């Protein structure tokens, strides 16, 4: 008996464990986070809204914004900032014409922005489910997300031209054939983008009343993006571009229109006008600096009006600035050590180097191009000249520099640092006292010291540096952050002038908006400058001449802001502009005579194919319906 009991006892575990069989594998407790939780309540849904914003390209990062080092506005040593990883090479490669299809520089946007678009769509699909969000707020959020979806599409169109439009998400387990989407004609792309912006408008606030919300999308932002989209659509790159006529989908659909339509410029001009009105409606105006600490000379006040229109956060002409990309590192890359007592500050690099052609792009003090000014000796621009007392706020008195650096417009001195140039601010704020200046020849204070520090051209992008940033010992650099400006009122004015000139030819309204910008820069009107000082005094009266003037005005006003890169593409001027040499002064030289000889740093090449990014080859193997851009 006892034995049998024992046996039963031994057999028990088997049945005991068999019993719990079905539950044993249910190890996952309730409430493990899944995507449904993201829309369960307002607080969480707002995080998803911010997720949609998180895909905003980081424009202030030289490694992420192709428009900084990918054109001809700025150059840099190979090893900028991140020692060894050569990431700066990424966009210099584009500038030099080394783009490729295997792993295209900047090609990550194809991935990132389509992800952003997918998240925008997820938000739009689910937002109605959230129980505790009020109707107006919900409308606003939906509008913001629609705007972002439009912006992300626009960013891709600028890069790639015609793109697949992801109006709605395909399911995760979609059939392989279904996910192989086609590119859509550029006109469809632009109209879809403007459609989205129009839909977004109604729910957006006129203004961000709460300072903590600055950077969220408002009606003026949406309208000015719409203006920019339509100007882009009307520009020669997208309006009747016959170079691209061979780009057709596998089913034969042409992706580019080849007929120029002046109507597009009219629509664009109207959109610009609407945007300007909306901006004025909320009190925006071109920024001018008013001295607060002390009295300043007009020269310095004017310089700060120019510099601060970019570097003072949320000044009166900022329509849209990207708070997802604060400007810190790029200021350190533009800044050089100015204090002779504290020259080995390793927090600043001074790597961002405007090439000689950018220095030559600025007007003379009379507000006309250096080639046209009948008082300015263009042919002797590389000869030497010594600064006198009259210009001591621009050039160090008694310092010998190239004639190129003399008698230039205020924006030249506000935007550029150079050998002999005075550099206001950065700790020295009294312009009656000795200000900082740059001595950049070999062996001098700011002479190039090795690969990591210094400019490669002999110019610096002073414009990007907030004047209140201070260099202090122990390699400290205190930076006044500002969100990267995506749209300034002066830029919008120039878009309007451009569109109007293209639609109707020169006229008072065209001049008016250009002159507003010139006035703030301390220049006379187009009419008077050209009439008086240009060797082509009637240039502004004909459409082609005025176009040239607007293009140059825009390149000067928005220099270093990542606009020129896209502008010269949409103007189809890149093959002409980006096929020369990048030049700078001869930095290895110790004396002025030898230093001020232009030397070639790099040669650029730009072919028709370079107007658009190549789609990564792998993506095309994954989706045979995607046709590669021409020439790649």
């Amino acid at each position, binding site marked *: 008996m006892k034995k049998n009991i024992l046996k039963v006892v031994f057999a028990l575990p088997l049945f005991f464990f068999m019993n719990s069989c079905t539950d044993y594998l249910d190890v*996952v407790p309730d409430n493990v986070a899944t995507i449904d939780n*993201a829309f369960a309540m307002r607080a969480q849904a707002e995080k998803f809204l911010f997720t949609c914003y998180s895909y905003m390209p980081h424009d202030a990062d030289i490694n992420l914004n192709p428009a900084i080092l990918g054109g001809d506005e700025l150059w840099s040593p190979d090893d900028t900032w991140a020692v060894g990883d050569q990431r700066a090479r990424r966009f210099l490669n584009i500038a030099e014409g080394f783009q490729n299809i295997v792993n295209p520089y900047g090609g990550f946007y194809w991935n990132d922005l389509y*992800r952003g678009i997918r998240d925008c769509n997820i938000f739009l699909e689910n937002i109605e489910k959230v129980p505790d969000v009020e109707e107006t707020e919900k409308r606003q959020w939906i509008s913001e997300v629609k705007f972002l979806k439009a912006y992300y599409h626009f960013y891709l169109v600028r890069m790639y031209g015609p793109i697949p439009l992801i109006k709605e998400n395909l399911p995760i387990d979609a059939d392989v054939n279904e996910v192989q989407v086609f590119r859509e004609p550029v006109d469809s792309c632009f109209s879809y983008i403007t459609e989205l912006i129009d839909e977004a408008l109604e729910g957006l606030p006129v203004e961000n009343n709460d300072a903590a919300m600055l950077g969220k999308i408002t009606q003026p932002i949406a309208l000015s993006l719409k203006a920019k989209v339509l100007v882009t659509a009307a520009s020669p790159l997208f309006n009747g571009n016959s170079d691209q006529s061979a780009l057709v989908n596998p089913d034969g659909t042409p992706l580019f229109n080849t007929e120029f339509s002046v109507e597009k410029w009219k629509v664009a001009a109207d959109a610009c006008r609407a945007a300007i009105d909306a901006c004025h409606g909320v009190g925006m105006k071109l920024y001018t600096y008013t001295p607060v600490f002390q009295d300043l000379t007009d020269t310095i006040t004017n310089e700060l009006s120019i510099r601060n229109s970019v570097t003072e956060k949320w000044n009166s002409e900022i329509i849209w600035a990207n708070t997802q990309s604060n400007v810190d590192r790029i200021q350190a890359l533009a800044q050089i050590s100015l204090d002779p007592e504290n020259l080995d500050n390793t927090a600043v690099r001074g790597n961002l180097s405007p090439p000689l052609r950018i220095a030559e792009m600025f007007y003379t003090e009379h507000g006309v191009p250096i080639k046209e000014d009948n008082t300015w000796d263009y042919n002797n621009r590389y000869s030497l000249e010594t600064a006198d007392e009259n210009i001591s706020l621009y050039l160090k008195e008694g310092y010998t520099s190239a004639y190129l650096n003399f008698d230039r417009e205020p924006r030249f001195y506000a935007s550029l640092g150079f050998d002999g140039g005075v550099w206001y601010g950065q700790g020295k704020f009294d312009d009656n006292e000795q200000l900082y200046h740059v001595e950049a020849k070999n062996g001098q204070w700011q002479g190039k010291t090795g690969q990591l520090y210094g400019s490669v051209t002999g110019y610096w992008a002073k414009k990007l540096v907030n004047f209140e940033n201070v260099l202090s010992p122990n390699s400290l650099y205190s930076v006044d952050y500002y969100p990267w400006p995506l749209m300034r009122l002066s830029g919008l004015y120039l878009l309007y002038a451009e569109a109007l000139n293209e639609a109707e030819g020169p006229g008072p309204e065209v001049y008016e908006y250009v002159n507003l910008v010139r006035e703030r820069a301390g220049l006379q009107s187009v009419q008077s400058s050209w009439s008086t000082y240009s060797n082509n005094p009637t240039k502004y009266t004909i459409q082609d001449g005025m176009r040239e003037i607007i293009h140059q005005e825009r390149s000067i006003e928005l220099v270093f802001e990542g606009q020129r890169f896209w502008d010269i593409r949409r103007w189809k001027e890149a093959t002409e502009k980006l096929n020369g040499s990048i030049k700078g002064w001869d930095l290895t030289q110790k004396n002025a005579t030898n230093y001020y000889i232009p030397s070639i740093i790099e040669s650029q090449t730009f072919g028709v194919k370079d107007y658009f990014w190549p789609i990564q080859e792998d993506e095309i193997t994954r989706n045979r319906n995607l046709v590669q851009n021409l020439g790649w």
Partner: protein
Amino acid sequence: MSIIQIKLKQIPTNSFHMKYFLFRNSLSVVNVSYNKILFQVLTICFIFFGSNSFAQGQLVTGRVTSESDNTPLGGVNVLVPGTSIGTMTDFDGKYTLKVPSANSVLEYSFVGFVTKSIELNGRSEINVALVTNEESLDEIIVVGFGTQKKTDMVGSVTSISPSKLRVPSSNLTSSLAGRVSGVIGFQRSGEPGADNANFFIRGVTSFGYNNNPLILIDGVELTTTDLARLNVDDIESFSILKDATSTAVYGARGANGVILVKTKMGSVGKAKISVRLENSISTATKNIELADPVTYMKMANEAVRTRDPLGEILYSDSKIANTGLPGSDPLLYPANDWREIMFKDYTMNQRANLNVSGGGGVARYFVSGSFTNDTGIMKKNGTNNLNNNISLKSYTLRANVDVDVTKSTNLVIRLSGNFDDYTGPITGGSDMYNLIMHSNPVLFPAFFPKTEKYKYINHIMYGNYDRGNGAAYINPYAEMTKGYKDYSRSLMLAQFELTQDLSFLAKGLSFRTMVNTKRNAYFDISRFYNPYYYQLKGYDPVSETYIRELINEESATNYLGYNEGEKDINSSFYLESMLNYNHTFNEKHKISGLLVYIMQQRLAGNAGDLQLSLPFRNLGISGRATYSYDDRYFAEFAFGYNGSERFAKNERFGFFPSLGLAWSVSNEKFFEPIKSVVTNLRLRATYGLIGNDAIGAPEDRFFYLSNVNLNDGGRGAGFGRGDGASYSLNGVSISRYSNPKITWEKATKKNLGIELGLYKDLNITVDFYTEDRTNILMDRSAIPLTMGLAATTRANVGEASGKGVDLSIDYKRSFSNGKWLTAVGNFTYATNEFKVFEEPTYDEAYRSRIGNPINQVYGYIAERLFVDDEEAENSPRQNFGEYGGGDIKYTDINRDGQITPADQVPLGHPTVPEITYGFGFSAGNKSFDFSLFFQGLANESFWIDVNGVDANGNPINTSPFQGETQVLKAYADSYWSEDNQDINALWPRLSPTINQNNAQTSTRFMRNGAFLRLKQVEIGYTASENFLKKIHASTLRVYLNASNLLTFSKFKLWDVEQGGQGLGYPVQRVFNLGLNLTFN
């Protein structure tokens, strides 16, 4: 049903013998020295009490010994066949038995010996010498949840005698390749504690996450490292299950094959003590040769200038001229041979094992303790007492005890623990080797000697060179001697097994349950200085020495810092309950049945993530039924029905059946005429389905759930003016999309085996197999980026197939004069190919993986080096960055005018060898034995690393100069230079950084991984009986062995077995002296 079942058979069923047996053995456990007296007393008692057993008849006495060494054999069954009359021998091998008649036959049987029958023919004293039967030891094969007789096997199982796994190394896994047919194996590193070999049963047939076999030690799932630490002296049996029928009972876990190890149990008898001591000398098989410092500097300058004529050269002419010059100041012009400075040429390692086994009627025991001490070859710095050399001390304790609780109930308790204590360099030994390869030899000395002037300094004055602002170069000597890391790893296992004979319900029925728990703990701690770095600055004319300047005053410390490293704690629980049935009907019909229920759970203490912290579980029922008729026809059916917690409810359980048939042709009547020649001929065939649930990295558990981070700072956004007026929130990110359809990977396996025995001595086993894997989890790679997915989606869409041959041949022969010879050969060929692989539709057919091996590497065909820049410009554009004359020219396969991934083709052989083989022989006589073993592998390609970096971004490749990488002598001897434009040079045009054009995977750096090596040589001496008597020992063997003595390969840069990891810790050549002593 494991070893217990065998034990049960040994226990006489006769109640008299049972009592006798129990008494005798219980006493033996208590006190050995009184055995004899007690035994005699007891015998008298039995005679008195058990008088009913003594019927009329004749009394027979005698002694049973072992023929080989004349030692008495205790516990031998002495039976009169066909009756219940029998007894067992005592400790001295003596027995007394009353037999019914003077003409009775007596049968003497004992495990491991050939059973002998002797007719009495009237004699009353019979002394018997039993012959050891190695065959019979092999005959019982351990299979899943039980044992089978080799002659009954249907499935494909390789069983190897543990003694053949003994190698002069503390790592068991390094012995598998070539010795076990069906295993593809290779060892990439010789670093103590990190030298586990990679091995795959029948190669790799899945491109999923896990290709490793299931390792079961005493029925419990353990890791490769646990297997590596197992002491060969503790192993009773070692089996590899290869085909569907043998692994079916492991259902969802057996698809990659199963390794089954059983540890020893005690057997009845006097305490048997066995001691083994080994001491070995370990040295690298091959050291990499580097260019001398002068060449290094010249080439470094050339690297800069050849790429940029205006580039700043690193080494001045005077530095080059003075370096290494007799009489020049070695501190000013350092020329470091880092290997010489940091490493010794060889090291000594020790291993010791002691085990005691024995037992009596109630209980039997096997206890063992092992100790191994493996040291590295790093030198110490005498200035402080830090020991930064690798020292891995590993201790193993094991106690296996089995107890007969009742006549029909047996209980086994197994306790074992394995403990590693390691101390060594902070980043490990392999990293030190790597640092040598990636440290500048000429910029600074390893350290500055203490001179009178600096005698007050209490730290080591390490050399370095200021890169500006206190940034320093890597000084490998400082990295090695600045501190040390300790780690401790403990594995504790406790196991309880209970077997109940259920014959009272049905004859041949038994029940067993087993519960095991395993606790694992690991932690490491580093202690280190931040080294003081000095460089020379300016000459002091007074003292006529150079002034030493401290360059990292801010960061250096002369006190120890401390860093807590990784901690890994986990526990497992395992339960298995099983019903077993075994019966023979009418002598010819043998049937057996098995039904097992298993459940297991593993929990990690520091999972790092909610989903990972949830328990890992498996649940299943398995079964097996066998039938055989007349030892000629055999059939076996086995199945596993398993569940895993990783899948959605309706995908959780899988059913994996298999069927096998075998025919012992040589047991047929018609075979009789040739049976003297063909002693054995057997054919086996199996077919079945097996699963694999380890289909994705551990962090990819719960495929049916999405994994979402609802508070991800990386996906946040912020707004506002700043200065207090700002608003930011984190965002949401998805790292996995849910897919409730994901389930097991399945393998359909077919096996055809032939066993052939010729002239008794030669045995050949060949198995042919094919395998079809379906449901392999893979990334859906054909989804374009326009989908905008944040994580790769996956599905069970992949398919692959494998096929191959396992061949083993062994020959054993004993000669009359005590001489013997054995020879063995193993050959494993395993190949595989992709069948279904989701990939884009390529324009170029050669890009498709379908039909190519799983470990096939794709890359470019390198033609040669460009002659000059002009040729480079006029060739198809290569899209990898700057290139010109002297850089590698690739073939434009698709002729589209540029080199892109579309020009990548399958290159060479797979990276996992397709062929592993081994052969060798042993021969000897009573005193001496000698053996040789060769091992090799073939059909493998590897790539010289020209681009790799480790997890921290430090280079681990051979590309000179980038990251201070040294120059291999082979590169210095053959490279393209402007003076010597050798388009076939080994190394392309120099570059101060990695030239991406030259760093592509291509045929240029592909090498053949095939080799043949003399894996092991051993000479042993066994002491004579006379001597043994003097020292009261039963055996004594002294042996000298050596491993990796010779290697045959075309590849000369480093040991070819290390493959692409040539800059790591080299494979070791070991000379070992050992001693094995047993007392009985």
